[in-house]
């Protein structure tokens, strides 16, 4: 293998690709060839680095210099200065804050310093389209170790000892789950990877598949060996074309090496894996619906028992785990259960990947040890609230989760603690909200989502969520009644208890938690007909303070509804009848004369 003195890693995750990282890679290649440096400098496309907000990301090794927002036009300068002359280009480096003007090294960036990357260990570090790079990072060693010296029972014991729990959301102990399927009798068994990531704002699984597809495949193979399966399915939504493409490449390369197929590594163990593209129904993330979808039937949940461990895909014993769960498996086998269980809390071991989004300074993908506080994630890693506004709430766990407030920021993140607060770990979406977010509107958003995604099988979920949504729509339109709140709570309990699967059982959570922690906002909408955050357009009124207005005409020129009148240098007036409450006038006013209430 050719030795290169320097490696230029360019992020090829979806976020950075849409930011133009493909052009950046091409330009680096061209520029290096032009300077005859292409034999000593390697350009690599990698998976997601997590700091999507600052993409496209470029990291230059061996120095480990971290560049952000790199454009095609910056490449010539980077090659000339950094690669050729050894002078890092400070204008493109990550600038943390005023106290820390230029932070050149990856490890010193606050965004990464509190992270512990296990599932994401290779994301942003290796070329996901090259199996050798995965092997260079101890890839397939876990499988080799298992096949050459461990019995299936020992593998399951190791998983139990690691304390790994299902990362898809429910947190069921993985080793125990495997033991059920292993104990189940049958000549044919399946392992399945759930990559039907559907929560709004969540992209952990996509990033793992895009950045390190082999670790998921290896994890599935270890599981298959432990449970006696010889065939696997990866159920990935079709909206993830890059993840599917990288998985296909990874499977083809593993087959070429004989790591997939018959008699793997000279043993009796054989394994093949297929990709099933899902059509993007949220309910297909539910395991029984997912399996129905693989079988070619309509994706709808069915009652359990029988559990998939006894009767799953095509009525054969099956085990289904989420992408992040599988990704942890090879690392546990290589480093040992003790290593893994040394991280985290008493009952929640290891790390969890979160997709940090919303009104936070550094959005992106973070992997943190269990037991970290929400404050550390949002303020230390995420850098705090955008534009230094006031923190209001964090929505955790997607449509099944709940909203937590300032009072909960110091709660330690674990399956138990979040459930106790009314939220759930979920798959790991974290949506941060500031003072301009209306909590009734948030509840309405998530309920709209689950209402649309309900498969319709259970009346409580199908009709109950519809009725709840209608009430929320009424409240945000200023037509709510106080008794609506009791009705909401009653309906929520009915939907929760009367639904078959997780979708319906957890659908009321966003409503219940906002009612619990932000009841005054609901009351303000109903009694005062006001939206305290100024977000519900039907309830807000924009007006111009004549004492402050300087008559610059900027608001009138930017009003899409042409509802602002006034002469130059004289106070302007908004016609509330015609106003569409877009907020443009408030944004553009240079003196802050526009108020909203």
């Amino acid at each position: 293998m050719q030795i290169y003195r320097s490696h230029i890693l360019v992020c090829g995750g979806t976020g950075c690709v849409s930011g133009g990282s493909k052009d950046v890679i091409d330009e680096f290649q061209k520029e290096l060839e032009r300077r005859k440096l292409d034999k000593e400098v390697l350009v690599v496309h990698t998976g997601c680095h997590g700091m999507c907000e600052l993409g496209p990301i470029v990291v230059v090794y061996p120095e480990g210099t971290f560049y952000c927002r790199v454009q095609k036009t910056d490449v010539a300068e980077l090659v000339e200065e950094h690669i050729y002359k050894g002078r890092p280009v400070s204008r493109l480096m990550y600038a943390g804050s005023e106290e820390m003007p230029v932070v050149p090294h990856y490890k010193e960036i606050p965004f990464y310093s509190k992270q512990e990357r296990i599932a994401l260990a290779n994301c942003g570090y290796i070329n996901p389209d090259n199996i050798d790079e995965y092997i260079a990072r101890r890839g397939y060693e876990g499988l080799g170790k298992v096949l050459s010296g461990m019995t299936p029972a020992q593998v399951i014991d190791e998983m139990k000892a690691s304390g790994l729990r299902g990362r898809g959301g429910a947190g069921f102990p993985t080793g125990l789950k495997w033991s059920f399927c292993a104990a189940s009798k049958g000549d044919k068994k399946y392992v399945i990877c759930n990559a039907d990531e559907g929560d709004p704002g969540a992209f952990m699984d996509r990033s793992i598949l895009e950045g390190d597809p082999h670790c998921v495949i290896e994890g599935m193979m270890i599981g298959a060996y432990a449970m006696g399966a010889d065939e696997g399915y990866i159920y990935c939504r079709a909206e993830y074309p890059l993840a599917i493409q990288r998985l296909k490449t990874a499977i083809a390369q593993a087959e070429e090496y004989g790591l997939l197929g018959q008699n793997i590594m000279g043993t009796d163990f054989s394994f093949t894996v297929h990709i099933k593209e899902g059509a993007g129904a949220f309910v297909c993330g539910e395991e029984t619906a997912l399996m129905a979808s693989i079988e070619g039937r309509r994706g709808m949940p069915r009652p359990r028992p029988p559990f998939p461990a006894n009767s799953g895909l095509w009525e054969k014993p099956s085990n289904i785990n989420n992408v992040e769960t599988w990704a942890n498996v090879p690392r546990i086998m290589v480093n040992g259960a003790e290593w893994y269980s040394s991280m985290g809390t008493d009952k929640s071991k290891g790390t969890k990947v979160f997709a940090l989004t919303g009104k936070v300074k550094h959005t992106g993908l973070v992997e943190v040890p269990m037991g970290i506080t929400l404050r550390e994630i949002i303020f230390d890693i995420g850098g705090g609230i955008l534009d230094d506004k006031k923190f209001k709430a964090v929505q955790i766990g997607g449509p099944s989760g709940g909203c937590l407030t300032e009072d909960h920021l110091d709660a330690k993140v674990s399956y138990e603690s979040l459930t106790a607060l009314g939220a759930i770990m979920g798959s790991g979406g974290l949506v941060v909200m500031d003072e301009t977010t209306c909590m009734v509107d948030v509840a309405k958003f998530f309920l709209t989502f689950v209402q649309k995604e309900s498969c319709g099988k259970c009346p409580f979920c199908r009709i109950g969520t519809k009725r709840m949504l209608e009430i929320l729509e009424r409240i945000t339109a200023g037509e709510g009644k106080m008794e609506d709140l009791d009705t909401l709570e009653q309906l929520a309990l009915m939907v929760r208890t009367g639904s078959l699967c997780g979708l319906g059982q957890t659908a009321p959570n966003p409503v219940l938690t906002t009612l619990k922690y932000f009841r005054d906002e609901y009351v303000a909408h109903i009694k005062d007909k006001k939206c305290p955050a100024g977000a519900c357009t039907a309830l807000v009124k924009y007006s111009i303070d004549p004492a402050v207005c300087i008559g610059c005409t900027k608001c009138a020129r930017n009003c899409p509804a042409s509802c602002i009148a006034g002469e130059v240098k004289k106070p302007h007036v908004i016609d509330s009848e015609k106003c569409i409450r877009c907020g443009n006038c408030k944004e553009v006013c240079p003196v802050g004369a526009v108020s909203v209430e």
Partner: protein
Amino acid sequence: MAKIKSLDDLRKIRESTSDLSSARTGQGTVVVVGMGTCGIAAGAREIMNSIMAELARRGITDVAVQTTGCIGMCEKEPLVDVIRDGSRVTYGPVTPGDVATIVAEHVVNGRVVDSLAIGRAD
């Protein structure tokens, strides 16, 4: 591609690709070539190429080769620094013929080449 039949096969691939991880960790011995205008004019590119060739010939993958700008001693260019065991030794002017000696003595065995060294820093 040959099939992987055992852990040993896997290990062989890992060893042949270990350059990947070593070049991306930035740890261990570092060789720095001065690539300011003065260094380039004095032939630093040729030195860089010789260093890369020598490391490849010896199959050394755990050494990082970096470039740097002008340090001020332009008359001694091309300058090559070796950072090993916590101390930094500067060599210059280095000719392509010196590279093999510096790699064999200092990079591999940790013995400073006194006849070529012009400075040391911790």
